[in-house]
């Protein structure tokens, strides 16, 4: 129940506040900004979502995982490109964010990898993505789904 109300609030903020999506929840002082994702072709291919996660509190926070009804296996991934120009992706593990600092999930770097989609990602829709922190805190953000060829949150 609580979650549904919050999602509604976030959707409203998204509409009126443009790109900035304050996602304050529980004890975690974290704000998620500029969240976006790309539409999928069907459900077989994994999706990816991007955002900036800002620690607005006085204590470090550690992001340990994701959950979403959209995908059975959401995971924070990191794309790396080596000196030979070869790109690879792997699980990023825990991500610590110092007070006042932020972490950017953006194309070619960290991303929320959405494996095992439960439904296609349709342009114009949104989905809730919950960030899980080491102390048990959670922050849920409503992620807009843009076109397959989107390059950033403003596309």
């Amino acid at each position: 129940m609580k979650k549904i109300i919050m999602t509604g609030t976030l959707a409203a903020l998204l509409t009126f506040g443009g790109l900035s999506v304050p996602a304050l929840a529980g004890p975690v002082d974290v704000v998620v900004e500029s969240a976006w994702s790309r539409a999928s072709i069907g459900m077989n291919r994994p999706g990816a979502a991007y955002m900036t996660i800002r620690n607005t509190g006085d204590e470090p926070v550690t992001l340990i995982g994701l959950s979403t009804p959209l995908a059975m296996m959401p995971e924070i991934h990191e794309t790396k490109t080596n000196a030979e120009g070869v790109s690879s992706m792997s699980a990023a593990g825990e991500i610590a964010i110092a007070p006042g600092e932020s972490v950017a999930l953006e194309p070619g770097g960290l991303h929320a990898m959405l494996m095992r989609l439960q439904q296609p990602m349709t342009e114009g829709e949104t989905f809730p993505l919950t960030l899980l922190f080491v102390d048990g805190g959670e922050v849920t953000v409503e992620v807009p789904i843009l076109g397959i060829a989107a390059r950033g949150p403003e596309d």
Partner: protein
Amino acid sequence: MALTEMDFRLTDHEGNEVGPETLIGRPTMAFFGFTYCPDVCPTTLSDISGWLDDLGDEAKQLNVVFITVDPERDTVEAMAEYVSYFHPAIRGWTGPEGQIARIADGFRAAYERVPTEGGDYTMNHTASVFLFGAAGRFVTMIDYHEPREFAVPKIRRALEEETEGAT
């Protein structure tokens, strides 16, 4: 390696047979990837689409090719649907694994199949964009995430390459 020295037979997203001779005669921009790639490939194809938009009419002289390194999943139909979301100049090429290996070898592009949890797999692959002149000579590469102000002049260099030897 120049395109004129390469030997491969692939199929484009409209079912046409293609080879090095398809590219020779016009400058070429090529990128290796796969349609199950959630991050690097759509980003690069979006970047390429943006560069083509910037080039405007000049872009019409270019061959633009997206070559899959995952032919098992990237059938002609999968490539056709995928490229339809990006700039209309982008052609999608696939073919038998052995022929993909040959074109990658010719381009000095690397790729590797990597198993993931639950029996799936992903592909590591060269994410640079390759540029060839109209005569088939390799000109330069655009590295992943290279800013547009560097990418577009590089493409212009490929466009201005000697066309000598080309038909």
